Each structure stands twice: as C-alpha cells, then as structure tokens.
C-alpha cells in the first residue's frame, strides 16, 4: 500500500482553507442518523465528542477512569502555545510553525504542523469563552510566558494547572452534550478490540470494568483519542492507567503505527528514589524560566548546594548553549543532564540528579519588589521574603508538590531533578484528515504521530489535542461520513462482532488460566527496565538488538508465569493491567525495531552512532527524511515510508548555541 497523506493543493497558508472550502458536508438531517464512537475523554477526545454533539451527531464516548474529567490531560502544568502575538515580540503563525518543525528536528509533515499553528489562536478564543481562568495582567488582558525552544512569549497558562483548566472546559462542553442526549459517556469502560466490517472500522468490544462483562458498541466511524504509550517504560510521568491497548489493537486490525521510537524524555522530573516507585512526577518546564540548572565542577563535592560558591558550579546548559541557556528544547536539556551524570557529576545519594536552583531568581524578584514598594536599603531577609512571594505566585503549586514528595523545601535548597519519560511523539499514522490507514478509524491527540516530528516543544501537546478535537476532526469526519448517510445503524449482531468478541474472550481466559507465580507489575517493571536501558535517552545497535531478544524472552515468560487473582466476571483491576501490559510487551519490540531502522539521530531519538563532534544529534537527511509506518503482519511488522518534503523550511543542523 502506498501511503497517501492526502495533503490539499495550494500554498501552505491556503491548504486548510482550501480543504474546508471543498470538503463534503453532511446535512443536519443526516447527522441525526449517524453515530460516532470516541475512545478517551482527554483534551482531544472530550473536545471532539462535545463538538460532534453540537453538530448533531450521536456520540458514544468511552473512558476507563471513573469520570471523563480524570483523563491525564488534567495533569499538564505549564501552558498552551498560540501565535496571538499579544506580547508584540515578533510572533506569527509562521514562527510558531517553524519553531515546532525545527523543535521536531524536521521530521514532521509540514502541512499538519502549519495547520496546527494556524488554529492555535482559535483554541485560546474558545477556551476563554468557556470560562477557562487563564492568567491575566492588571489591565485585564491575557498574560503570556516563554517556554523551551522558543525566543518569544506565546504560552498562555493558568498557574501550574493549565491542563486541568482546559480539560475542565472541554469536560463542561461534553457534559452539556450529555444533557442534550447527543453524547452518552461510558466511564469505567475500556476498549479491548476494534470491529472491522467490509474494511471499515464499525465498532468496538469493551470491558465494563465494574461488572467485568464484555459489551459491544457500533458506529459509522471510530475516533481514537486514547493518549500516549509512555507507560511502556513502567516509570513515566503518565498516569497509572495510561495505556496503548486501543491504539495497539487497532494497529493489529490494520492501522499503521508510525515513528514508534520517538519518545520524549522530559528534563525536569523528580528523580527515582526506590524500587517501590510507581510513577515519576514532572516539574513543569516553565520552572526553567527562572531556575538555573547546574552541577558541581568537582566530582567529589561534599558541600551542601548553598555552600558551593559560583566558581565551583557548572551551569552546563548556559555554558554549552549561550543563546538559549536553560531554555533549550527538552531533548537537548535531557541529554545534557545525562551527560553530566554519566560523567560522574550528578548530585544526591544516587548521583542521578542535577540541581534546579531558584536562589538567584528569588533575589532578583525580591529586589524588584523592594524597589516597587520604595523600600530603601532592604536587608537580605526582606529581599528574600519579597522574592519568595513572587516565586510562590508563579510556581507555588509545583513547589508544594515537590516538598510533599521529597520532604525538602525548594525555597531553601535547590530542587534535584532528572529526566523521565513523558510523551510519545509516535503513534498511529494518520493522513491530513487524521484518518488512519484503516478507513473509518481516526486518531487524534497524542495517540497519533502527526505534528511534533521527533521531539515535541513544551506547551504544544495541549495545543494539538484541542486543535484536533475542536477544529479539525469535526470537518474531516464529515468528509468521510458523507458517504455513509444512507447506511443505517450498524448492528452489533453482525458476525464480525461475534468473531472479535470471541477472540477477546479467549485472550482473557488464556491470561486468567496461566495461574503462574508472578504479578503483572513484576513483568511490567522488567519490561520498563529493558526499554529504559536500551531504548531510552540514548540508543545503539547492539543494545537495541539485545533488547528485542530480551523482550521476546520476557513475553514468553509472561504468558507462562503470570498470576492474576480474582475472577473474569467482576471488577478485577489486575486483569485490566495484565491486558495493558500484554500489549506493551508487543509495542516495546516494535519501538526497538523502529529505533534500529533509524540509524540517524533526530530530536529525542539519539543513536550513539550518529552524532556531531560536540555530541549533538546528527540527522542524515538523504537517507531518513521519512515517517516510518509499520504494518502489522502475523509474520512480522513491515515498514512503509512516507517521504517528507519541505516547502517552507530548509532542514538544517539544529543549533541552540
């Protein structure tokens, strides 16, 4: 199959308008007869489901959590980008597009990324209208801050809880449609497989997580908004329940999986402290606006951080990247931290951490406040107190979270941070219409591969989730459903449903009947360790080849020695976890294969064999300017390539020096 991205004709800036001007529409009378399934209720899923409902479609929305409001978009902290240029600092749609493209190391499809930048402003308008309480200036207008990988201030934010506020806005819009009867929400329901009839996605098999029963749901189209797969590493900043099952099962039914190896390791997370640890916690990138990152210059440094004088500190990001300093993109900052720790300069008991220090910011802000308050010759304590007030206003919730987890007060001592798995740029391959290679199956938000190339810039996942859900899929799904206006409701009695349900039942029984000795978490942790060590921040051919064999062995052991207590026909969280981990075991292998195929370094994918003399990622454009799209086959995954073309950008060695 030749991959056709279906990019519309015309100049880049006109493509989306051209598409909207010419795509087919479905009349209100026909929308009433059409059904759409949406999997996941995060920013992408909730905004899509709400918008479909407003248009008049009948929507069934599913989430595994107890309420749609709990989807993991809720945890996004720092902000959302938009090319509004309210800051008057030279921003534009082109700049947001260009920085996203460059941040992704020229490995995304230009037309999709450009459209994202074009729609960014509409998102802010929509969210403000919903009553999202964004930060504002004293004059009542919206405030902005800067984020990594950019030189303008275009990030809108709601303290350190931007994702929460945006999601609650979308959740409100969703509940409003529930009230009208256009949307039905099925919470505590998890999609376990996709039903394909005559080559089109027409339904799903889900497990009711309360009763344990399998249920069937049908629709004219299925939209996946099921998030990323960072939990393949066991430890990540994802929520406990985040999983790849909906996307992976769809992949096995015919949707290609793209760029599986592009995994974002976020530079500022609270370090691992012990084997019992269940997840890692992010400290927002916005902290790098005011915090300075450093390690001691001396490997055997014994002094406390505050007692180390400036000349004995290595502010390594400022040293290596003078023009961007602490605000380099995430992939660059993460690798730089790893480099220092691997070289033996790490701090803390594990030596796997670096300092993020606010002492100077507190002093700087304190002086400014003292000046504003006309305090003459303020003493040091007054300056500190005033400065801490400013820092608390900006980052108070993050500082409180840090203190709860570590027991240390970051106003007094520098934070200790280390990179952790955060976001997956890879996902289901989609064309310009966000449709997968399986007709009638769409993928939006983090679960597709579309807009961020090989590395995502901060404050752009919220932007993509909402652009996809509010402003793109409502148009493109109409273009697809225009063919289906005469198709009556799909019957769940169709033999295809029988067949898929039977397969799911057998898989569950097989898992329950292993009756081995080890828990799901045991296997999940083992898988995570292989992935982190060999397909993490730094990869090489030997490690990846070993990882594939190790994963295959682990998978075999999993299917022989797993123990799941409880019953099938009742609430059974261990069984739910087991099914997710079974899919991670397969995905992990594909990630390693994808990483092995891509012999270049690009963005977050760092192949040790391909680096510049300074140790930066070295792309090989003449061989690897493509999206890898894997087709599932029983005998093994087959690679297809979508070649990337560049109309508006000229791929260059990414430099933040």
């Amino acid at each position, binding site marked *: 199959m030749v991959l056709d991205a279906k990019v519309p004709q015309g100049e880049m800036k006109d493509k989306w308008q051209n598409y909207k001007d010419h795509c087919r529409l479905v009349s209100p009378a026909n929308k009433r007869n059409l059904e759409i399934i949406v999997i996941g209720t995060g920013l992408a899923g909730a905004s899509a489901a709400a918008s479909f409902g407003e248009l008049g479609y009948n929507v069934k929305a599913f989430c595994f959590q*107890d309420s749609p409001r709990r989807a993991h978009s809720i945890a996004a902290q720092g902000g959302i980008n938009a090319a509004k240029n309210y800051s008057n600092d030279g921003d534009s749609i082109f700049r947001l597009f260009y920085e996203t493209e460059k941040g992704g190391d020229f490995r995304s499809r230009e037309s999709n990324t450009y459209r994202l930048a074009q729609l960014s402003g509409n998102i802010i308008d929509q969210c403000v209208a919903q009553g999202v309480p964004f930060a504002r200036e004293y004059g009542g207008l919206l405030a902005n801050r800067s984020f990594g990988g950019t030189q303008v201030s275009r990030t809108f934010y709601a303290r350190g809880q931007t994702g929460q506020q945006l999601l609650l806005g979308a959740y409100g819009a969703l509940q409003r449609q529930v009230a009208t009867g256009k949307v039905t929400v099925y919470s505590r329901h998890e999609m376990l497989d996709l039903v394909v009839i005559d080559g089109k996605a027409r339904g799903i098999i889900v497990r009711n997580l309360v009763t344990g029963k399998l249920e069937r749901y049908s629709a004219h189209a299925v939209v996946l908004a099921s998030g990323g797969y960072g939990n393949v590493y066991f430890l990540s900043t994802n929520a406990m329940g985040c999983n790849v099952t909906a996307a992976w099962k769809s992949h096995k039914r015919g949707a290609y999986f793209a760029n599986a190896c592009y995994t974002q390791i976020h530079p500022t997370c609270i370090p691992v402290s012990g084997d019992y640890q269940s997840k890692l916690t992010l400290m927002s990138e916005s902290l790098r606006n005011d915090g300075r990152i450093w390690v001691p210059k001396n490997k055997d440094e014994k002094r406390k951080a505050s007692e180390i004088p400036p000349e004995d500190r290595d502010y390594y990001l400022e040293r290596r990247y003078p023009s961007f300093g602490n605000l380099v993109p995430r992939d660059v900052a993460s690798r730089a931290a790893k480099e220092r720790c691997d070289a033996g300069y790490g701090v803390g008991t594990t030596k796997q951490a670096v300092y993020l220090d606010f002492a100077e910011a507190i002093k700087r802000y304190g002086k400014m406040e003292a000046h504003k308050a006309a305090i003459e010759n303020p003493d040091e304590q007054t300056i500190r107190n005033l400065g801490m007030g400013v820092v608390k206003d900006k980052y108070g919730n993050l500082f409180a979270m840090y203190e709860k987890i570590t027991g240390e007060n970051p106003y007094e001592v520098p934070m200790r941070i280390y990179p952790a798995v955060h976001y997956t740029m890879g996902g289901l391959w989609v064309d310009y219409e966000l449709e997968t290679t399986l007709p009638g199956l769409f993928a939006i938000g983090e679960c597709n591969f579309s807009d961020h190339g090989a590395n995502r810039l901060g404050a752009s996942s919220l932007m993509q989730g909402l652009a996809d859900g*509010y402003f793109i899929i409502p148009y493109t799904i109409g273009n697809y459903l225009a063919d289906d206006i005469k198709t009556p409701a799909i019957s769940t009695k169709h033999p295809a449903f029988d067949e898929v349900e039977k397969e799911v039942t057998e898989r569950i029984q097989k898992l329950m009947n292993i009756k081995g000795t080890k828990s799901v978490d045991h296997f999940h942790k083992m898988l995570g360790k292989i992935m982190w060590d060999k397909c993490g921040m730094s990869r090489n051919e030997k490690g990846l080849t070993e990882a594939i064999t190790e994963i295959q062995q682990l998978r075999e052991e999993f299917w022989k020695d797993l123990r799941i207590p409880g019953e099938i026909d009742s609430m059974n*969280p261990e069984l739910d976890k087991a099914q997710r981990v079974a899919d991670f075991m397969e995905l992990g292998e594909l990630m390693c294969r994808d990483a092995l195929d891509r012999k270049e370094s690009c963005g977050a994918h760092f192949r040790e064999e391909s680096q510049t003399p300074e140790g930066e990622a070295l792309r090989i454009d003449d061989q690897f300017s493509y999206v890898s799209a894997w087709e599932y086959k029983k005998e093994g995954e087959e690679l297809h390539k979508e070649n990337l073309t560049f109309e508006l950008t000229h791929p260059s060695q990414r430099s933040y020096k």
Partner: protein
Amino acid sequence: MEHYKMNLTLKVWRQKDKDSKGRFETYHVKDISSEMSFLEMFDVLNEQLIQEGKDPVAFDSDCREGICGACSMYVDGRAHGPWQRNTVCQLHMRAYRDGDTIVVEPWRSAAFPVIKDLTVDRSAFDRVIEAGGYVSANTGSAPDANAIPVSKWAAETAFDAAACIGCGACVAACPNGSAALFISAKVAQLAYLPQGDAERKTRVVNMMEQAKKEGFGNCGSIGNCEAECPKGISIGNIAKRNREYMRAVTSTGPEGI
C-alpha cells in the same frame, strides 16, 4: 531528610461489590520506606496479597500527583489522611512511625455507593455538572480572547474556585453528605467571570436541584469540607453560591427563572 523503614498494621474495608456486606480486614506490611507514597504502600500490600493467592484491595488512583481527583481513601477518620491540603496519593509514609496501626475506609456517603473495597461511584458529580456546570459556547463561535478584559482579581478568584479536582472529599467529610462545596466551586468560578453571566441564574438553580435528586444533603455550615479539601477551596464559595441562588430565585425579568 531522614529515611527509615517501618512495619505497620492496616485495617482495610473490604467489600465484594455494592450489594455485599463489607467488613474490616487486618493486614501487616513490613519494611515500608518512609519515602513511599501512601498508595505505593498499598501497592506493596497488594503485591503481598497476590503472592498469598488473595484478592488485592481495589482502590481508585490514576495521576498520582494530586490533580486528577481519582484517589479517595478515608484514612484514620479523615478524607485523604492526616496531611492538610493533600490528596492521599501525595501523602507520604514519613507521616507514620514503626508500629502504627492505620484504618482505611472508602468515602462514606449515600450519594457515593461503594463499588468494591475502597472504590466508590462518584458519577453523581458528573450529573451535577451536566445540569449546568459550564458556559454554553459552541465550538467556533468565540470572539477574540482579548475582546472581553477580565480583571486580574476576578480571574484569580475564579481560578481559586476552579482548582477543585472533583474528588469528593468534601462530601465524605460532611456529616450531611452535602456537595455544597463542590457545586459552589463551579458556580463561583463562572459567576466571577463575564463569560458565565448569561446562564448565571439557571446554572445555580439547576445544579442545586440535581444535587438534591442525587441524595446529597444540605449545607449546615459545619466547615469540614473546607478543612479536608485537598485544594483548599474556600467555604466562602458556598456563601457566594447562596447569594447567587437567592439572586436567581428572587429576580424576575427575561433572564430570570
């Protein structure tokens, strides 16, 4: 920070499903690190139960960073345990000492029936929001975001209310099982912002009507809700809600009820 290990006795509420009768079971866990979170301590307990061939304890948890609102344990008689302004996923074991006994129950409220063990059904909250906890702004119809200035004070005050995570601790802590704090957080957020103005009256009335149908009790100004709220939502919002309600039911005119 001093790190230490401890052995603990846990008395945990076990209940097979919503129709079964529940009971406390006693468990012992060993070598718990003071650096673990409370839920990681439960992961250790569950690993132990699985090894013993027993059914692990079911409890809700997702983000484990205090923002999704899924976790919901009543620990030693307090919603989310002993720390102030905290969710139970962010409670850390340094709050305890070797030899302690800890009693863990689900949220107790008629409107939140137990599904299994420590897991309860909070869908009543979704239905209360469904009754009006939003601004009716269809996708695509919004004016420019800076078209309507909002004072910094209003935005910040609205945010303070909007920080509610919908965990239900307020209901669990209230002797009346009232959802007043939860409702007031949404009513106040949207009442402080110009965007919420058009539906201001119907919103508060409809949300309160729905809460009554769900079986939530009335507010008796007891204040447990504010004390136990992990996000520090102020009881002042309930006063705001009451003013909004009085304003709605006593006014007439085209936008009245």
